[in-house]
């Protein structure tokens, strides 16, 4: 079964490129323009991984992550947040949330694919350690 990825970004070009690249890698990709749309999509179907920008109009990435973790406390699927902020205080908020990691901007789609591949491989190993 295809792993599902939810892309959240208000930059259509980013969504366009990542969707194309991830679909080529065999992922099932959904996208949203901001946090509210992402929550709507999530209500219909929980993704295996969420990739989100932080600075967005409407509900931003930070609020989206907090809402997701609060709304689905038993489902700590990984969230990758894309940021160009380098200051540590800008990144401190993720410590209070489980399984949230940063992706540096400018983002390389290849790096994202590598992170996802590693994650799903590790997850598969943990689920079936004798495989």
């Amino acid at each position, binding site marked *: 079964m295809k792993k599902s990825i939810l892309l959240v970004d*208000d930059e259509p*070009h*980013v969504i366009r*490129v990542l969707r*194309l690249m991830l679909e080529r890698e065999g992922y099932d990709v959904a996208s949203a323009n901001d946090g509210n749309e992402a929550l709507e999509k999530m209500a219909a179907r929980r993704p295996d991984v969420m990739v989100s920008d932080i600075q967005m109009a409407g509900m931003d990435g930070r609020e989206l992550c907090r809402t997701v973790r609060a709304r689905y406390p038993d489902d700590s699927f990984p969230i990758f947040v894309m940021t160009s902020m380098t200051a540590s205080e800008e990144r401190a908020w993720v410590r209070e949330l489980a399984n949230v990691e940063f992706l540096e901007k*400018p*983002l*390389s789609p290849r790096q994202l694919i590598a992170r996802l591949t590693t994650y799903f491989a590790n997850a598969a190993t943990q689920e079936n350690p004798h495989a």
Partner: protein
Amino acid sequence: MKNNRIGLILVVSSLAVIALVVTLLLQRQHKDQAEQVRAQGLGTVRSLAALPASVLLPAPGQPGQSGVLASLLAGRDNPDFAYAAISAEDGRNLAEVASPGAIVPPAAPLALASFDERSVAAGQNARAIREFRGPLASADGRLQLRIGYFEPHGLLDLKDLPFYALIALAVFLLVPLIYIVIKREMAPLAALGAQLQTLNAAQTQAQPGTALTRELDADQDVRGLAGKLNRYLDHTSARIRELEQDSIASMASGRLLEYGSNKMQAVLQCLPDGLLVLDPAGEVTFATGKIEPLLGVPVAEVLSQPSEAWCRDPELRAMLARFRGAGLDARSQMTIEFNPLGVPGKRLWATAQALVGHSMAYGTLVVLRDATREHLARQAGNDFVAHVAHELKSPLNVIGMYGEMLADVGIDDPALRVEAINVIQDEVERMVSLVNNLLNVSKLEMGSMRPERHRVKLDDLLRDAWQQARSRAEAKNIRLDLQVARDLAAVSVDKDMFRIALNNLLNNAIKYNQPGGSVTLMAEEGDSDVVIAVRDSGIGMTPEDRERVTEKFFRVRETGDEQRGGHGLGLYLSNQIVELHHGRLTIESELGHGSVFSIHLKKMPALAEGGQVL
């Protein structure tokens, strides 16, 4: 010398006293003798007048001799007895007796039946005689009895000499006593005189310009003392006048100081910073009214209070505690930045400086400065850098992604290749536009962007801008129209700057439009101004967005999938440029129906023939 004078005065005084006493005594003696002679004379005349005349008259045949009268002479008990006579009415002396050397003077008529007395001049160089007389009844007619006594001579009686000598001795004995008493009484005056002299000398020495009009009298007598006293009083008066002048000067100086102090207080109160002065114990001794809006604490609650009593801010309290007590020098200074609890939203700098001088610690000066604007500016600067970095990273992010995609998957897909190339080109243009606008904004805010205004014909300028924007509009399938009235009035603008403002308006109108939409560049002339408008059939704005659309970095929230690529500087820059040209930018917009951005510029008066128009 002084003593001799006093002695001489005393001797002369004593002699005068003696002379006075003797004179008085002699007068008394003379009066007593006169009274005695009178009583005796009148008594004798009265007693003899009572006798029959025949007893008193001489016996017949012995004219001029009377036994009774003779007995008066023989038995006289008064040495001043001169004569006794019985005279007839015609002045003849019927009987007379006289002391040796005395001459019986002629008789004078006597009033009827009366006793009287008179002075009789007994001749030149003779003693005056007091005569007592009275009527003597007889058969021979009217007779009068006369008895004369020498007037008392008033000379010193030798027998009284011891008495007078005794008085003189007593007076003389009083002289040394008085002298001693005077000396004793004069001693304090002498001491006072010496002191006055010393004071005078000291004042004269201290004030060489003050001339002594007279030399001190060396004899140190009372006049000398009075003189010294007068001079001392002169000096004292002069000194009092000096002190009064000093007092007036001091008062004037005091008022000047008070004026200066009040002025300084007014200056300190006018300072935009709040000032606090604390004594070494940490109590506030001075505070300006500015501390209330800065700290939220009234001055009255601060004065004469330690910091614990009024200061609610732990950072400030900790700093004030460090400056309390000894061990501080003039270099002791500390600055903190904090948000005062009493005034939310305020940011303050507090600088404490030890007040030290001449080995004395006077306390601490605390200057409170409102750093809110600086803090916000710093924050805005940080935000600006973060924003610009984000604005630059966003197109770079897209360019990088499309680059990777082109390399990995798009190389064999012509449609993807075209898409990637177009996106990369758009993002590069976006970055170039951002960088150009950033540079222009920077120049604008630094004040280095000064319009060089010239008289410009708008037709050409607008037509150029329209031509440049046409290709961008056509690429997005947007119609770009030009509606410019003929013979528009000239305006005074900086062509290069004005072109930036116009291009930003046209770019926005194209960017925030729909495919198949339209943009119209118009210009028309009003009574006093020229209006250049850019009308679009784009997405429009809400009234809230329209109010803020010319703010720096403000971006209208976009809806739908299309990315417009705005960076929030274009309209800000256009508005600033229009304002630099003393014009105004107005915006009409309706969400979903497009917007109209209008630049209003003042018309220039028509040029005389030959004027240059660019």
